[in-house]
């Protein structure tokens, strides 16, 4: 009898184990960015930011059947279980809702500033929207829950600065990516609180460098730490165990003084001894511990046990140096969780990466050093992807071409290749002319974004202007240039063409001089003719400033007082005129004379080039070396010296007022 009891117990135990294994937790979505499929895969919705509409495409006939006007700069689109289409209007602080078959905007709901991230809850009752900043302050972004039934915001909560994408974990949790910080936050949607801010990503990715145990030699010769920037997207695996987020690993260590004559010094070494100083990456995060699972970026070169790891290499490495990968903008994962599709906006391709192994049919990371199973060329400026539910087709939206590429597979195993209809994509629109945009603007935009154009950069380096100036903004990074640390300045909305000379040290009198230097010596390109430089200038000049919550129809009292202090403190003696710079030079006591990478005194005999203060609010960190995290940090530091404005006698509350004013510029 006891034997029978034992047997029954064993059977029950094994059944329990089997039952527990089957739980699924994530909210799977088959699309990302500017593209989404209807629930039956028969319709494709593409958000065209230039034309402010959603293109509706019949996937059977591959023809556009409708276009629906929405708000300005529609960025992301998502489809609910009831087939409602949701769109974030980045330029209109709103979300649009469209009902399938009724091809007009059914509702527009106000949210935060520059809404970008979007997700529909699995129960279809709530739409979650991530906005880059709140309506009150640029210091933090927001997460807004929209009640689908009432079509109105149910609640809004603050999250960290510059959030970008969202991925839902069931109905009660969400993960948010942050653009400048490159890390993730875990949010409890029921309690409306941030459970975990950060995955310990930076420390884990640079563990050996930070601990001083990194070694030169076969385990990596680049002796630098790397900061994750440009956290554009995050996606959860279907089993809810892991998250994959896109970053650009940005080098922190000093870039070598002697530039490589072929690649330029932006090719001076990236993470894992591959790529450029700014290299695209995929970060894996274990959701149960909310901890980054990453390679050590100093020691993860080929030849180590890296090939045995069950997550994608943390740096995306191309299978061919002639085909760069840059600017990960959107990511989708197949329903089985085996493949990650990374849409690369600056290299015009899609990288298909296995998620759980580094060795599959057609890919051997150990021997090739590449993490990419297939690298599929698509059109220009891709920023969205949607996978069909049968796992046989992928659509990619090419924002600069206003077209859709269709990706399919041919062959099996080692012979399987993915092909695109790149020669005959589905066209949905053309470049709109007007409002300061013309053919030169659009041509310049392609130059600005294209890491595959050998005129702009050496393709083995694979960096574009947009790599550090994403969409003309800044990446928040301070680079260790040979002349000293230099924080990436924002370009958008700063009237750059009126603010020569260029660079922090003002060494370039004209934009052509600047382009010649940067393109040839830094990026390794063959160079841009004056005509091409004009195109580039047309794009930069046409960039709208980042939306700013501090700009109000009627200034607040603090802003008015701050303006008076700006004048009283003689800030406008240098930051003067319509562009808030006198285009001169000033020594405000910030030059670094020591440390690992001091400023080159020979380049700074006149001080630093006075930067424009336009669009200041969302361009943190501040100063040439990025040493001031906030405007107040800058103003409070060393203010008694009166070297950076006559602020010695200004009270703390007046400093606060001044900050409020500076944020309105």
């Amino acid at each position, binding site marked *: 009898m006891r034997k029978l009891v034992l047997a029954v117990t*064993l059977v029950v135990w094994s059944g329990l184990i089997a039952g527990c294994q089957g739980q699924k937790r994530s909210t799977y979505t088959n699309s990302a960015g500017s593209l989404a499929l209807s629930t039956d895969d028969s319709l494709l919705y593409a958000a065209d930011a230039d034309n402010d509409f959603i293109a509706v495409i019949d996937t059977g006939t591959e023809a556009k059947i409708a276009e629906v006007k929405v708000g300005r700069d529609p960025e992301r689109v998502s489809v609910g279980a009831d087939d409602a289409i949701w769109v974030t209007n980045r330029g209109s602080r709103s979300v649009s809702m469209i009902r399938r078959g009724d091809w007009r905007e059914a509702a527009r709901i106000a949210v935060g500033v520059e809404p970008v991230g979007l997700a529909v809850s699995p129960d279809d009752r709530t739409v979650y929207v991530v906005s880059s900043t709140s309506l009150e302050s640029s210091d933090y972004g927001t997460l807004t829950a929209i009640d689908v039934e009432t079509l109105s915001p149910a609640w809004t909560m603050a999250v960290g600065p510059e959030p970008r994408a969202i991925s839902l974990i069931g109905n009660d949790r969400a993960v948010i990516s942050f653009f400048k910080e490159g890390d993730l936050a875990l949010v409890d949607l029921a309690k409306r609180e941030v459970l975990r801010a950060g995955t310990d990503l930076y420390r884990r990715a640079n563990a050996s460098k930070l601990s001083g145990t990194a070694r030169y030699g076969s385990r990596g010769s680049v002796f630098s730490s790397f900061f994750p920037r440009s956290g554009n997207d995050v996606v959860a695996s279907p089993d809810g165990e892991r998250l994959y987020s896109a970053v650009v690993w940005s080098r922190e260590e000093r870039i070598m003084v002697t530039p490589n004559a072929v690649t330029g010094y932006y090719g001076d070494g990236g993470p894992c001894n591959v790529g450029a100083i700014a290299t695209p990456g995929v970060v894996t995060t274990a959701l149960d511990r909310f901890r980054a699972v990453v390679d050590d970026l100093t020691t993860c070169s080929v030849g180590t046990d890296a090939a045995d790891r069950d997550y994608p290499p943390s740096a995306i490495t191309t299978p061919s140096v002639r085909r760069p990968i840059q600017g990960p903008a959107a990511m989708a994962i197949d329903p*089985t969780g085996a493949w990650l599709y990374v849409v690369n906006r600056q290299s015009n391709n899609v990288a*298909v990466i296995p998620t*759980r*192994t580094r060795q599959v049919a057609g890919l051997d990371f150990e021997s090739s050093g590449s993490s990419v199973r297939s690298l599929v060329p698509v059109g220009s400026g891709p920023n969205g992807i949607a996978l069909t539910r049968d796992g046989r087709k992928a659509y990619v939206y090419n924002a600069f071409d206003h077209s859709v590429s269709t990706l399919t*597979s041919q062959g*099996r195993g080692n012979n399987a290749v993915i092909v695109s209809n790149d020669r005959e994509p589905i066209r949905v629109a053309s470049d709109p002319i007007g409002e300061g945009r013309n053919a030169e603007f659009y041509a310049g935009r392609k130059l600005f974004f294209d890491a595959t154009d050998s005129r702009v950069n050496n393709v083995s380096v694979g960096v574009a202007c947009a790599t550090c100036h994403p969409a003309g903004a800044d990446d928040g990074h301070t680079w260790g240039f040979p002349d000293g640390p230099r924080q990436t300045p924002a370009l958008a909305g700063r009237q750059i063409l009126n603010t020569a000379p260029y660079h922090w040290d003002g060494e370039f009198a004209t934009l052509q001089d600047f382009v010649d230097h940067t393109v040839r010596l830094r990026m390794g390109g063959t160079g841009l003719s004056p005509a091409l430089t004009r195109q580039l200038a047309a794009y930069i000049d046409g960039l709208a400033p980042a939306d700013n919550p501090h700009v109000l129809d009627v200034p607040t009292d603090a802003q008015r007082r701050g303006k008076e202090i700006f004048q009283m403190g003689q800030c406008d003696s240098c930051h003067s005129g319509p562009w808030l710079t006198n285009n001169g030079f000033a020594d405000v006591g910030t030059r670094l004379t020591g440390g690992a990478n001091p400023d080159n005194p020979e380049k700074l005999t006149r001080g630093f080039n006075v930067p424009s203060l336009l669009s200041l609010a969302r361009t943190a960190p501040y100063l040439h070396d990025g040493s001031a995290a906030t405007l107040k940090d800058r103003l409070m530091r060393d203010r008694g010296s009166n070297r950076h404005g006559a602020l010695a006698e200004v009270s703390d509350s007046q400093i606060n007022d001044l900050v409020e004013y500076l944020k309105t510029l």
Partner: protein
Amino acid sequence: MVASRALATLWLLVASSGFAAPDLPALSDPSAPLAPGGSVQQQAPTGRDPNTTSLFAATALGRGNAGFGMYLGFPLLGVRAGYGILDTVDVGLELDSFYGVMNELRAFVRWQLYRGRHWTWALVADGGKAFFAQTAATEGKGARWLTGRRNWNVVPGMIASYSSAAPLSARLFVDLRCHVAFDTEPFQSDPLGGIPPALQVSTNLPVRFGVEAPFSSRTSFLFAFGFDLHGRVEDSKLMPMVSIGVVTAL
């Protein structure tokens, strides 16, 4: 052909070895009629008790009797415990392991159809759930490739065994099965190659030759070899197996 030659060789070796104990007295009356149910009423010899505890051959344990076995080999090691619920029907549990990379807990039933003086035939079926250390998407040429097993497995088949009349004679057996594997971990092996169905069924053909060679009235050595023919394209086409172990009465 190779396998059948090997079986014949093993058969001759064992039959001529001490395991057959040819000098021991035979059953008291070899010509005694079969008992109801097809089993022979083993009569205790005057010198040594017969060993009737079998877990891998076709001979049933008998009502109320229990047996335990363990084996070590390639690609699997495992333990098996059986209990005779009827004179001709045993049930039991078994744990197979590909050295920790794959562990399968399975139940088995054996129905002794026929037992003659030398030959015994039985229908058998195993079934259970396998736990893999790696997911199907992660694993390359691992436990699934080697064993053909998937998340759930059912292995019906037939065993034929032969023994001489001696109390401690070896039980030579041939075990032919049809392994039906149920894969509940579908994944895309090729990007954009299509989503496989939620449940994928594949079949394999395991063939085993072996011997339970008693060295006492309760305990036997186990030697087995054979191969699996795998029907799933992702798996190895043919995988040899070999194991040694012991079987004992509880």
